């Protein structure tokens, strides 16, 4: 069995995944997405599957699209990765599946965005449609801030600033929850704790094991199913007595979650990849 791991950079996660695959007798080829060339009429068929770990979502999406056209299985699939790479697509998928998520609004001009923020009620959170690691998140507390921020965003230009994606701010208790889903199982979950309202570990949040109760399990599996299933990290917010799914990540980072949960996350991912190669029907979420 020969699996390619598509990478832009070899981080701790990629080394752990490589070792887990090798430990299972799988031959692993590390493929640097910056060096890869793909001629569409000449499929590369030397891999039984490709584990997509590109740090660049653009490159990862392009490459998985071509691989799938060649019949090469990818983890995650192109469609799942595309849905998760766009917060708008994720929100639409969650809403369509009835998964509770923060109230979300879209607007396409600064003026309309102010109206959307007023309709949601302050504070609201402005997010880039594509982006990760808590980058470019802005909490907007009032109309003055909204008008200034939206004007600046419009002046920056470019298609990424032409869509205003807003969510009602959830007054979470100094933490959020990240649940790790592999196939039809929630393998572990962590709290991400921070004094800052942005609780990404990339922004310094601390991690702690989070017990998986029936509600968290069900919500995580429903969110995974909503985007198409696979190997996913589900971000959830505690909104008083209920959970809201805020994001779903398709190329999850987990180095800070292994020790605190005691779960062999790379091993579980490697098992999933092996099942995909073997053609074992992969259950999707709930």
């Amino acid at each position: 069995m020969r699996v390619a791991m598509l990478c832009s950079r070899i981080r701790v996660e990629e080394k752990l995944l490589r070792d887990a695959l090798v430990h299972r007798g799988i031959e692993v080829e590390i493929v640097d997405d910056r060096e890869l060339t793909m001629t569409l009429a000449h499929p590369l068929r030397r891999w039984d599957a490709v584990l997509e770990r590109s740090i660049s979502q653009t490159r990862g999406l392009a490459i998985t699209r071509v691989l799938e056209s060649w019949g090469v299985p990818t983890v995650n699939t192109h469609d799942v990765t595309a849905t998760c790479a766009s917060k708008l697509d994720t929100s639409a998928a969650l809403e369509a599946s009835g998964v509770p998520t923060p109230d979300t609004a879209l607007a396409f001009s600064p003026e309309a965005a102010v109206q959307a923020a007023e309709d949601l009620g302050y504070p609201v959170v402005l997010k880039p449609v594509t982006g990760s690691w808590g980058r470019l998140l802005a909490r907007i507390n009032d109309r003055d801030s909204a008008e200034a921020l939206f004007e600046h965003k419009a002046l920056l230009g470019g298609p990424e600033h032409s869509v205003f994606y807003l969510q009602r701010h959830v007054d979470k208790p100094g933490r959020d929850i990240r649940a790790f889903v592999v196939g039809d199982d929630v393998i572990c979950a962590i709290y991400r704790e921070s004094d800052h309202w942005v609780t990404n570990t990339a922004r310094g949040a601390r991690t702690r094991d989070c017990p998986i109760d029936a509600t968290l399990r069900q919500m995580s599996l429903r969110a995974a199913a909503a985007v198409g299933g696979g190997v996913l990290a589900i971000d959830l917010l505690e909104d008083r007595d209920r959970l809201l799914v805020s994001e779903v990540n398709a190329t999850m980072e987990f180095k800070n979650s292994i020790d605190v949960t005691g779960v062999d996350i790379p091993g579980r991912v490697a098992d999933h990849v092996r099942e995909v190669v073997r053609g074992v029907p992969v259950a999707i979420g709930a």
Partner: protein
Amino acid sequence: MCPECDAPVPLEDGVGRGEVVTCPECNAELEVVGLDPARFVVAPPEEVDWGE
């Protein structure tokens, strides 16, 4: 050698191509592009589409 400051950059055992190390002299983030001999380039800055 660090391409930023010319300082020698030690490579720990197990470090491979594609990994990022930090120059002990100038703290530049360096990507390992060769192992024998060790070669480095300045790691590319974070781009807007990078993430999970």
